[in-house]
């Protein structure tokens, strides 16, 4: 009895010691690649192309982090995760970073013990209706049938919105976005509601997109961001400042085209120099090479370039910057200074 208690204690001590000393960055470097959890397929945000190469808005965050660590944007192992498996995959250590359009909420941050490293897309729940319905505001939807994905936060938001405005609705439960799209087009519901970015992407695939309109009301806040496990603040810092570097690069005019030139010699702007490693020891503080941000920005460009390439107005998804513009342009993107 005494012996087994002793062994148990020793084993626990050994385990906790192992857990405490396991720095994610060291593990990642030893492994030679970043394990990044992504969505199994969401237009513009993450999906494999015909050759199996992952691309998308969230995928580019993974690539930027991998580039910052290894100088190689392809040193990423993409792990497709579903809505059910994503959090367990992260907390069990199967993935190092989850970049999967996940809404930053209190309970996910505090109760599930994750650290959101920032917001890479400010989303909100909207409504898609046929133009023929003649509705111009979500408040006109009294008595309407609404297609809604079950078991999501959007379902709760919808109930709250209709109750607050004292109007009624008839929910039509769907499981996936694909099913919602089909049901909506088949006329099973008057309106389809989910994140506005998803609605825009869905509308873009319709045969006649102009016959459908997004209502102006956004009924919820959905800040989507990448997240890491609790308990390794160094690793959270690294990821947070890679994301910040991408956003700051756009604000400061650093692009994938001119980053090499700007990093070649110190410029007149000290903040640019600190980001690009020509001044100060910021890379070493993160445990990275001095040119970490140069590599991250070269990988997929700055935040604006990533946005335009994957979901911007020139893509079929065609999202406007809106809330996701820099603070100088009236948006919400505002990075702390590199100092």
């Amino acid at each position, binding site marked *: 009895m005494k012996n087994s208690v002793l062994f148990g204690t020793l084993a626990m001590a050994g385990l906790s010691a192992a857990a405490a000393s396991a720095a994610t960055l060291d593990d990642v470097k030893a492994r030679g690649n970043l394990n990044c959890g992504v969505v199994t397929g969401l237009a513009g945000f993450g999906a494999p192309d015909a050759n*199996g190469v992952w691309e998308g808005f969230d995928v580019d965050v993974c690539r930027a982090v991998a580039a910052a660590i290894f100088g190689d944007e392809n040193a990423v192992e993409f*792990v497709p995760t579903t809505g059910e498996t994503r959090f367990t995959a992260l907390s069990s250590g199967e993935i190092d970073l989850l970049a999967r359009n996940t809404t930053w909420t209190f309970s996910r941050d505090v109760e599930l013990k994750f650290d959101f490293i920032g917001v890479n897309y400010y989303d909100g729940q909207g409504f898609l209706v046929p133009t023929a319905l003649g509705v111009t505001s979500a408040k006109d939807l009294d008595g309407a049938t609404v297609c809604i994905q079950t078991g999501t936060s959007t379902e709760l938001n919808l109930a709250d919105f209709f109750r607050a405005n004292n109007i009624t609705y008839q929910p039509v439960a769907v499981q996936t976005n694909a099913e919602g799209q089909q049901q909506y087009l088949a006329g099973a519901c008057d309106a389809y509601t989910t994140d506005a970015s998803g609605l825009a992407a869905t509308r873009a695939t319709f045969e006649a997109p102009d016959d459908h309109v997004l209502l102006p009301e956004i009924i919820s806040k959905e800040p989507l961001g990448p997240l890491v496990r609790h308990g390794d603040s160094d690793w959270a810092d690294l990821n947070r400042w890679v994301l910040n570097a991408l956003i700051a690069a756009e604000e400061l005019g650093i692009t994938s085209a001119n980053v090499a030139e700007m990093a070649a010699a110190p410029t007149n702007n000290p903040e640019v120099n600190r980001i690009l490693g020509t001044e100060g020891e910021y890379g070493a503080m993160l445990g990275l090479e001095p040119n970490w941000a140069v590599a991250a920005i070269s990988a997929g460009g700055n935040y604006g370039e990533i946005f335009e390439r994957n979901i911007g107005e020139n893509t*079929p998804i065609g999202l406007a910057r809106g809330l996701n513009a820099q603070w100088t342009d009236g948006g919400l993107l505002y990075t702390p200074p590199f100092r």
Partner: protein
Amino acid sequence: MSETHAHTTAFVRDAVLPQQPPPATASGPLRWMRDNLFPNWINGIMTLIAIYVIYRIVSGLLPWFISPTWDQPSLSACRALFTELGQSTHQACWGVINDRWRQLMFGFYPAELYWRPTVALFVLLAGLAPVLFGGFPRWFMAFALASPFIIFTLIWGGTIWVPIVVALGLVIAVVAFRGLVKRNAILATFAGIVLPILFWLFLVGPLTAVLSDALPIGLDPVRSNQLGGFLLSVVIGVAAIVLSLPLGILLALGRASDLFIVNKISIAFIEIVRGVPLIVWLFTASLLLNYFLPPGTSFDLTLRVIIMVTLFSAAYIAEVVRGGLAAVPKGQYEGADSLGLSYWQSMQLIVLPQALKISIPGIVNTFIGLFKDTTLVLFIGLLDPLGLTNAIRASTDWNGIYWELFIFIGVLFFVVCYSMGRYSMYLERKLQRENR
């Protein structure tokens, strides 16, 4: 002959008339139609109504299916083509199959290595042939035994020494069992199980390392997460089918056994595994196991899924085989005992051949269900064909495409499941003994 009767009879037929065809209404298609389609006026009206309904369905579907879109690079290109041709846009856009069929078949398997799974499929078919049909030379059976290892090497690559050394463990098991079975059957069974496990646990690693250092032969390794699409379904399905049949038979024997512990363990295993939905076991494999394993160990997810699906299917097979065992008359068991056969001999020679023959439809039914259930892995983030449809729809080219992909995948699964069903009927006919 005609001479003698020439004067007495007006006419004598002196040659057999050639056979006449029966009247048009009593044979051929007309007869068939009258018998089967229009035997009386009520059935005739029913037939006409049925033909009309079939015509409406086919005429509605065919224009959708027959659509000149094989070369279109995207859904919008398909729609542009329909508008240009002045046709309805309610037509299939087959370009998505042309663009992505490789991905639906092989997942993310490196394109230059597609020949390896293809060869593996032929090895699988060749290896299954002697097991399934019989009448092959004996040496071909050796090939069948080696084929799982060949297939493993072809699909996952890496050094060839791993499968060879693992196969050596099986040889050790057989040699140990054969060598000891004359002295003590229980000791032989024990040695046959424990020795190879010890060998696999402690000697495979170092032995493989030494051998691959000395003779580095092998193929480019391919990681499990590069498997996907139909290849993944077949890998999981075939591995689980091949492994679950022997395991299921052992469990059925265990459940029918008089040995208290063996009996209770078998019952507990079968009832627990069967009483929980497969999707729960898959979530256990993908989520819970990670918490139990020490941090840093990566236990391949595909392997975890194969193990879970195998255990699940084994529980079902066990119950099907138990039904077969129960259907064998008691006299057969007693007859075997009266001949002085040991337990294993009586099972192997008398009981199981009869029980398995009875169980064939049930076993194949379970296998067909198992193969289709492999699509459940999409819920744990593995990209099987159904999982890939979602990924394909997420590309801007193909967002909004549904039926074409689902029909393609449905046809793939139908071909495999229908073949299994036909094989089971062939086997039943071949083993039919009552009417000989």
